[in-house]
């Protein structure tokens, strides 16, 4: 092999090159910072351990049906706590929210980076970031008082026009339209648009100018540049951003609690019917009157939603970091 030629004498060992903090002050400086950095791991571990310890009574008695079954009767003689509809509802709302938010977010990012002049783009960025800073209780208040009537209207229109599609189908018009996963999905979309936008904007704005100008010079139009140059190079970053938004959507609590009727009659995909689920909201809704056995059940629910969001977020930040090589030091 080529390596053998280079190292003629095997006795010559590689000199170990290392640099470390020289002074005592530096040693402490790096020690303190690395301890604080590792605190991130400690925090995650602590959360898992504490939640798991409190969730164990429920998890051991309910087994795997805690995730799949659909029944919640914690105060029976043999308590039954099965989270299925809530978990499915969280996913349903999360995906609805992402489907609604992604076009808005990508459009806003494209507008900010490629269409608006600089000062207007700065204003638009501020507006989007402001949307991210709105507390979820405020969004929930708006959702129940202002947005719900409008969204009910939209829901009725889409039911009339698209009722033949299963997701827009409604069995009983009296138990539909208000408090539906459709509205919850919109509320969640409002909350995750800024997250997806800011990741997408970052990726768009770091795009190689030469690539775009080259495509334009070759006769590309705006659309073909968008379709063939911008989207392929930034798609992985955008997917990462969308996953970040999904993670946020899955954990959303207060705002959904206001606009959704939580029900253990599982709602697979009828977006417009007035029953749905969300794990985080369920925890908050039940918490006030929880008995001891239900307390453990809610802890188990918290553990589940934590692990799900942690997995989604880890994947998302892994993808986003991979898609932004310029952010490596």
């Amino acid at each position, binding site marked *: 092999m080529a390596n053998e030629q280079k190292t003629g004498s095997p006795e010559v060992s590689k000199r170990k090159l290392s640099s470390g*903090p*020289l002074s005592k*002050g*530096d040693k402490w400086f790096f020690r*303190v910072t690395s301890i*604080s*950095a*590792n*605190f*991130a*791991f400690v*925090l*995650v571990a*602590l*959360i898992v351990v504490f*939640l798991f310890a409190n969730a164990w009574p429920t998890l051991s008695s309910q087994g795997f049906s805690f995730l799949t079954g659909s029944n919640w009767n914690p105060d029976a003689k043999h308590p039954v706590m099965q989270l299925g509809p809530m978990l499915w509802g969280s996913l349903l709302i999360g995906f609805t929210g992402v489907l609604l938010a992604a*076009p*808005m977010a990508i*459009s*806003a990012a494209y*507008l900010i980076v*490629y*269409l*608006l002049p*600089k000062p207007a783009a700065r204003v638009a960025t*501020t*507006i989007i*970031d*402001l*949307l991210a*800073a*709105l*507390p*979820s*209780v*405020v*969004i929930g*208040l*708006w959702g*129940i*008082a202002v*947005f719900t009537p409008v969204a009910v209207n939209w829901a009725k*229109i889409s039911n009339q026009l698209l009722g033949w599609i299963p997701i827009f189908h409604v069995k009983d018009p009296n138990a539909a339209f208000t408090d539906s996963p459709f509205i919850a999905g919109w509320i969640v979309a409002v909350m995750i648009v800024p997250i997806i936008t800011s990741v997408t904007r970052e990726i768009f704005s770091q795009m190689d100018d030469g690539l775009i100008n080259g495509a334009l010079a070759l006769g590309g139009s705006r*659309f073909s540049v968008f379709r063939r140059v911008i989207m392929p190079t930034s798609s992985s970053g955008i997917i990462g951003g969308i996953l970040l938004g999904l*993670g946020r959507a899955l*954990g959303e*609590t207060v705002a959904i609690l206001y606009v959704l009727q939580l029900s253990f009659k599982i709602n697979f995909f009828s977006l417009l019917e007035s029953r749905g689920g969300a794990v*985080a909201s369920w*925890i908050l809704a039940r918490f006030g009157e929880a008995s001891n056995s239900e307390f453990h059940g809610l*802890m188990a629910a*918290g553990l589940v*939603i*934590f692990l799900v969001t942690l997995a989604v*977020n*880890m994947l*998302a*930040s*892994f993808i986003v*970091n991979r898609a932004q090589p310029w952010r490596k*030091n």
Partner: protein
Amino acid sequence: MSNLTSRQPWAQSSATFKLQLAIVSTIPSVIGLLFVILGNLDFSIGLIGVFLPIQVLTVAAFGWRKAKRRGLSDALLIFFTIFFSTLVLVLLLSVLGSVIFEGFKALSPHFLYENNRYVGTTTSLEYGGVGHAILGTLLIVLLTTIAAVPLGIAMAVYLTQSQSKMRGVVRTVTQSLAGLPSVVAGLFVLAIMQFTHIERSGFTGALALFPLMLPTVARVAEESLRLVPSDLRMAALALGAPNYKAFFQVILPAAKSGIITALLLGLARVVGETAPLILTINMNNTTNLNPFNGPIASLPTYVYSFLGSNYSSSQQRAWGAALVLLIVVGILFGSARILSRKKSLKTKPVKKAKK
């Protein structure tokens, strides 16, 4: 970059083009509005059923006339971009507008400083206010800040200054902590309270906000430390300064406004958190200045509790408190924005006049 058409003479548009563009972009909305007003059509139906198809058709026809298929796809791309962005803007303005409009009805000087000692769900708005909730929020968030900000900055230092191989993993974990569901943070502290038998107080609320604030501070501080040119640090090290002196005397002053931005954005992140506080504090109606003992009020839980009742005066209180919360967030966010703006102006190279 942000403006592809600048310095591109071939992209200059003529006056007739601009006129046609103006006509194409106004006619469909006028028709839609006419349908809504004269035809007594519902606004949403008018928007989706009348305006959208006509607008898409006119835009497509306009693009086709200009440059056949290329023009068509370009025109549609730009139209949908603007349409969806406008939707975002409308949603945001609707949130802000309704909170400001409804909140102002409840707002009065005494609403800001009085507490709710003798207030029930039906008490008229002339009595009581959110004074105790503002103080409670300030105390809780202050406690969180004392713990989260130094730790977050230390994390950011680790991520930018050290050469450790673990940085990538730490960054990923920190970022995924940023997506921690707020209710889980509350449950976590609740589990700790079960274990250690700590009573509910402002302190436990602050503890629940801590894991939510930490990643935000760490991320923003990391961004701002990264903006400091590495030459500065290298020069300091080359002059013989140890790393910690280089950090405290060179890098930290250079990144000062960024660090304050991190603090402010972290505050804005947690000041409106509701779920963790509902789980970990007992709400009360009177002023409590001791965060380590007894029930304590906060703005988000105030909104939450009054929204639960159906009486109009309670609803009004909820809107009023939401407006106060929004103002607090707005002040934090606005000052963070101004600080980071100044920073970016400073780091930009001064442009020389071309003439």
